């Protein structure tokens, strides 16, 4: 039975404010042979001034490359098929970008803008074609499902998740070696294959999802909150309501309006019509990560409370340096942080119960909470 599919991209608040277009692209399609969902996120900075086009070309190239994916997997095996697919995507994307650049030379306005953020050497490399891919820089993340197999590829930030018939959400994609802080791996890198990841498996997931990092900037990565959002999208896809697309639009608009990053948001996915997921669960590892993350947040709030309480104590009328303005500010902060602490403890309680005794070991793959060590 063919998967149902959905996809949606919405412009972020900061892009709207600065008059930039949405630089996320998403797509999803399927037939009796193969179902695909994809998102691509153009980098959006002044240096990547055609990244929206780069994201669009990435999705277009993917659509052309995957038509015989199940047959290739049958013939060569999944690992080999995915490696060939990723290599082919990188090559075809570069060709498509260069063709676009030849047909559409850099405009004066584009060059004037980018010159402000490049060194002379970088600008020269842009002009002589050495760095002609950089303006089109984009990430790419896609999921595929057919018969009794599924697979996913990812280059850059964003995320890929899946859910089984029991409602267990997992994030099986290996961690990136490059994504860190505000950096991401990209199709425009000199060697994108170095960080182009994949995963695959047998069986028929109830749902497969891909999303751009605009969503991860709004909800904690691999968290119960994110699982709930994805599950809502799954249920929305199942519904026969004609308002399905409108519902998805409103949800993503609400997310981007609440997000303090103001980034574009995109999500795409596949839902098995024969499997209904009711109870959302996340894996014990993900629950533990959520608990640890909230625990760190709690520690930070407590440290801030302690710091400001001490300052408040030192600012009392009987102390030297008494100042009513400072005391009022400190009292406001202390009250606010006490409230935050209370609410955070309420948030943590159900997760604490679910975690039981918290394990500190790792389950095999590197703990995604661990970032590259800077020291």
């Amino acid at each position, binding site marked *: 039975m063919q998967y149902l599919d959905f996809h949606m991209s919405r412009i972020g608040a900061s892009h709207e404010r600065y008059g930039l277009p949405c630089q996320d692209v998403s797509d999803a399609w399927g037939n009796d042979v193969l179902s695909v969902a994809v998102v691509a996120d153009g980098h959006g900075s002044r240096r990547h001034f055609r990244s929206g086009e780069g994201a669009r070309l990435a999705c277009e190239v993917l659509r052309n490359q995957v038509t015989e994916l199940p047959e290739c997997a049958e013939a060569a095996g999944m690992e080999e098929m995915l490696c060939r697919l990723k290599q082919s995507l990188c090559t075809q994307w570069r060709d498509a970008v260069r063709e676009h650049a030849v047909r559409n030379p850099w405009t004066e306005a584009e060059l004037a803008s980018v010159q402000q953020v490049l*060194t002379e050497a970088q600008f020269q490399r842009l002009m002589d074609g050495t760095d002609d891919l950089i303006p089109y820089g984009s990430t790419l993340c896609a999921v595929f499902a057919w018969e009794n197999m599924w697979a996913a590829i990812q280059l850059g930030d964003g995320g890929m998740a899946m859910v089984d018939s029991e409602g267990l959400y997992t994030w099986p994609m290996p961690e990136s070696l490059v994504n860190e802080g505000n950096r991401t791996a990209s199709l425009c890198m000199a060697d994108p294959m170095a960080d182009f990841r994949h995963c695959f498996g047998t069986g028929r997931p109830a749902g497969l999802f891909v999303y751009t990092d605009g969503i991860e900037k709004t909800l904690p990565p691999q968290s119960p909150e994110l699982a709930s959002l994805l599950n809502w999208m799954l249920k*929305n896809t199942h519904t026969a309501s004609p308002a399905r697309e409108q519902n998805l639009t409103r949800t993503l608009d609400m997310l981007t309006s609440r*997000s303090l990053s103001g980034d574009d948001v995109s999500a795409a996915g596949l839902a098995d019509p024969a499997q209904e997921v009711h109870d959302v669960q996340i894996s014990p590892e993900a629950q533990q990560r959520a608990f640890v993350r909230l625990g760190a*947040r709690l520690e930070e709030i407590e440290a801030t409370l302690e710091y400001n309480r001490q300052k408040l104590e030192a600012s009392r009328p009987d102390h030297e340096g008494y100042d009513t303005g400072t005391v009022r500010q400190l009292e406001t902060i202390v009250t606010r942080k006490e*409230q935050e602490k209370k*609410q955070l403890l309420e948030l943590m309680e159900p997760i604490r119960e679910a975690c039981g005794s918290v394990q500190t070991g790792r389950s095999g793959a590197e703990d995604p909470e661990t970032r590259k060590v800077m020291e």
Partner: protein
Amino acid sequence: MPTENDSIWEGFESVFFRDAGAESLSETEPSAGVRSTIADQRQILPILFLIDVSGSMRGQRIAQVNYALENIFKELRRRDDMQSVIKIGIMEFADEGRWVTPQPVLLDDFVFTQIEARQWGTLYSKAFDALNDKLRREGFMDPKLGEYFAPLILLVTDGEPMDENEYPAALARLQSNGWFRKSIKYAIAAGDEAKNPEVGRILSEFTGVRENVRFADEGEALCNLIEFIAIRASEVQTSLLSAGPQTTKAQESIFADTDSSLFSSMFETD
């Protein structure tokens, strides 16, 4: 399977949205307590101030530092930054390096109180070791709290070190710290006593960029310089990463358009 008559929001049971009875998601307000979780998804920009509080800083110099810091925090709060959340760390150093803020404090949770100079001399080794101690995941750079921009560090001092035998090793330890290497560092030498080659050399080794070491006379120049660097560098720091990698041109231009008589380099003869 849900039909048109079913509320499609029923499955959206989450700590994120608490109002289970809402007709539509747009009518559902997230719990106020979760707002702090949402806010933390922005990248963190630590801005760390290392302030010399040795005896020679007493009087006009420390007053100018205090005045500058007060203005800096007001200005940073006034700016609406969607890309980063600023956290403030302040270290006082003289005979020891003491973090006034045991952890970097969110700008919104920070009330600046006046720094006082003490009687002691300037031991750079104490400052360097105290900084090295915190520029790590167990210190200020806890990855569980989010992802970080490279810190912005501003050191203000007015005198020669009294620990000539100790500070080189402490600086070497600091320079082997990955977060320190990635940080953007500025240093201000205040007053005539700071105008000597030894101080200039130490500070340029600290910052790694000679251009980032500046001299300030007494009075307003010191205050203006501190404010300029902190505000301008924090803007550049977050905009650098938005502009993409290797935008060194923007990084080097923080003093490009400034009046050199106001913000004089320590190395004017170069």
